[in-house]
């Protein structure tokens, strides 16, 4: 494999930015945001340069690597800190640095009133560096470092306004739930080392054929747990809604476009594990299917624009996970949906941020309405993202989502039918809740408070939105024309050449999907555009709405099943420690002290009583000996 030293700069530039901004402190307040943006942009430049180099090389020589240093060398266990840039990583590198740079630019204006803007940019740079390390690491252990790094950055950024206790709690919740996923990843690494003796991607791929299926299934399930934690998939999805406590650019970058898709990356990267472990692969599909419905249902009931978008993110990542679980035919589509989703969802989040910026940080959509006239650019860019997520041709989501639906139908047998129908219904619900967001926010009558003065955001904010909107329009076509992305990623995946019979022709799938989307849009239209929308959420709603408003009871479930028993267990253990362990220690002391003070009475200072005791003792001893001898 060819080496390329400039790979290091991809990570080093944003990392240096983070270090400078954090160490320079308040002195960097004046220019910190500019440095942060420059570092991210130059990292993007390096990424583009790498892409050009890669395009110049023949297919088999495209991956490049760079060994940084010998990290661990203990007996049989050798790990180098190394970077690997192949066709899959480059997609992520460009998404992370590209969308990341746009969001840096957006944040210059969005965070301009925040006195901690420099710190914000430091964390953003830290995130970019960690995320790049995640996708560039050439072994599971290197990936793990980046994996933890993005978790840290996510924690710091969700709790950026941690002066509000609820926000601090949200960041803690995200961190703790992510720990469960991280545990899965560490178990997967342990299994890889125990069964194959290596943790590098190349090594595991080489040895996967010889490993037992049980080991690979275990590793696959643990990787799935890791992916579920990071990508907010069922059953570790509960943190994503609360993560919206972070500033909106963070939601756009970390909790929509990049970090939450790390799970999809992990599964796609580990394709050699999942292809050899059908059980784990089936579980991946199930998790994806459950989450895409779960997120979509939550999305229908949320009045908080960011939480509605977060639920949508969860649902869309469900699509990606599902596609990734379908094996070699699905990986490329998972990545394609990931890239298009990165554009349109980041664009919509930035749009939501722009709306909040003009509405005194109001997030309740019931207090919006009729904003189209006041924020035309936001409306247009958000609208293009909306059309993209719906999957209306020729916008980006049409290409990526239809591919997933089609692949799901073609999975074969009952599994194919169930998955296909699930993805179709998911598409309809997506259309419903996204239309609801559009109608409540941009059309209808104005319902905002008197002190709100909606206005279009400055150009620093709408420019990134416009760029992302262009991506939302064109990325699907560009990536799928001539199967560009599929062919690009093709060398990485172990394809079975024979194609199974298609259940439906692609055009039929598209027609079905569009019909479902139309139904969803129509329901939302009649429910919200034709009727007056109340500015407070109605209370007399069906039980289903109430459950959906409470995130399908995910928090209650976690509290009832994990938190309270966990607390009870901890209380019991503390009590047991107090009574049993400490009790034993204290008991020994008390026995010693008690017997001491009892015996102390004998020490009365009178020589004659000592003598008497000695005498009695001696007589007793002689008597005892006498009895024994007799």
């Amino acid at each position, binding site marked *: 494999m060819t080496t390329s030293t400039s790979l290091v700069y991809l990570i080093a530039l944003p990392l240096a930015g983070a270090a400078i901004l954090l160490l320079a402190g308040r002195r960097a307040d004046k220019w910190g945001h500019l440095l942060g943006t420059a570092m991210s942009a130059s990292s993007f430049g390096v990424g583009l340069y790498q892409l050009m180099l890669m395009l110049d090389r023949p297919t088999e020589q495209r991956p490049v690597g760079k060994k940084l240093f010998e990290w661990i060398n203990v007996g049989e266990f050798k790990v180098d800190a190394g970077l690997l840039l192949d066709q899959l990583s480059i997609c992520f590198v460009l998404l992370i640095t590209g969308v990341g740079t746009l969001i840096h630019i957006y944040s210059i204006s969005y965070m301009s009133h925040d006195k901690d803007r420099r710190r914000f940019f430091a964390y953003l740079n830290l995130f970019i560096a960690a995320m790049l390390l995640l996708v560039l690491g050439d072994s599971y252990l290197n990936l793990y470092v980046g994996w933890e790094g993005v978790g840290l950055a996510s924690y710091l950024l969700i709790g950026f306004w941690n002066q509000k206790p609820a926000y601090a709690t949200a960041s803690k919740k995200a961190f703790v739930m992510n720990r469960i996923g991280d545990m899965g990843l560490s178990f997967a690494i342990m299994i890889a080392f125990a069964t194959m003796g290596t943790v590098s991607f190349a090594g595991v791929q080489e040895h996967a054929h010889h490993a037992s299926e049980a080991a690979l299934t275990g590793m696959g399930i643990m990787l799935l747990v890791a992916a579920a934690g990071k990508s907010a998939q069922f059953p570790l999805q509960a943190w994503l809604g609360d993560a919206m406590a972070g500033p909106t650019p963070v939601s756009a970058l970390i909790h929509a476009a990049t970090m939450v898709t790390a799970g999809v990356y992990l599964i796609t990267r580990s394709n050699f594990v999942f292809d050899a472990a059908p059980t784990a692969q089936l579980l991946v599909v199930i998790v994806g299917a459950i989450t895409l419905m779960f997120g979509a249902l939550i999305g229908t009931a949320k009045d908080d624009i960011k939480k509605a978008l977060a639920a949508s993110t969860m649902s869309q990542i469900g699509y990606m996970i599902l596609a990734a679980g379908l094996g070699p035919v699905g990986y490329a589509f998972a990545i394609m949906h990931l890239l298009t989703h990165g554009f349109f969802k980041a664009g919509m989040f930035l749009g939501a941020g722009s709306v909040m910026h003009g509405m005194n940080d109001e997030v309740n959509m019931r207090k919006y309405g009729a904003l189209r006239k006041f924020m035309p650019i936001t409306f247009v860019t958000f609208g293009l993202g909306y059309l993209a997520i719906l999957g209306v041709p020729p916008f980006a989501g049409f290409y990526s989502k239809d591919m997933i639906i089609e692949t799901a139908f073609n999975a074969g047998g009952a599994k194919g039918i169930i998955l296909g129908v699930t993805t179709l219904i998911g598409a309809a619900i997506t259309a419903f809740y996204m239309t609801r967001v559009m109608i409540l926010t941009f059309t209808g009558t104005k319902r905002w408070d008197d002190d709100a003065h909606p206005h279009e955001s400055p150009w620093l904010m709408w420019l990134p939105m416009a760029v992302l909107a262009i991506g939302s329009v064109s990325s699907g076509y560009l990536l799928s024309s001539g199967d560009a992305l599929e062919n690009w990623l093709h060398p990485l995946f172990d394809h079975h050449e024979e194609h199974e019979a298609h259940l439906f022709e692609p055009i039929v799938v598209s027609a079905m999907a569009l019909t479902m989307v139309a139904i969803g849009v129509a329901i939302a239209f009649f429910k919200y555009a034709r009727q007056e929308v109340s500015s407070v959420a109605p209370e007399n709603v069906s039980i289903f709405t109430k459950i959906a408003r409470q995130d399908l009871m995910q928090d209650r479930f976690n509290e009832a099943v994990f938190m309270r028993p966990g607390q009870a267990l901890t209380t019991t253990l503390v009590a047991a420690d107090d009574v049993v362990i400490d009790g034993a220690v204290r008991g020994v002391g008390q026995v010693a002290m008690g017997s001491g003070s009892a015996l102390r009475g004998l020490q009365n200072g009178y*020589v*004659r009583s000592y003598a008497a005791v000695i005498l009695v003792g001696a007589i007793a001893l002689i008597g005892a000996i006498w009895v024994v001898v007799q």
Partner: protein
Amino acid sequence: MNAANYLYISALLFTIGAVGVVVRRNAIVVFMCIELMLNAANLSFVTFSRINGDLDGQVMAFFTMVVAACEVVVGLAIIVTIYRSRRSASVDDASLLKR
């Protein structure tokens, strides 16, 4: 004469000494009673020496005398010192070494 009679006398002397140590308060008298017990032991030693027909017991008796002499020197010095400081030779008065 039956050698056992010496042992009886030895036991009697030891008992008198032991009772004296326990019941008397005067340190000098207690001291003399200790001497009585030591000499009772000496009497037993020489009696056994005679009964067994060897010299072991008599050698032991000399040892006892040496120990007794040392003990008297140290003990009397302590008693005289205590008497000088507190004008009393009662063992019950010297009871500060407790608790």
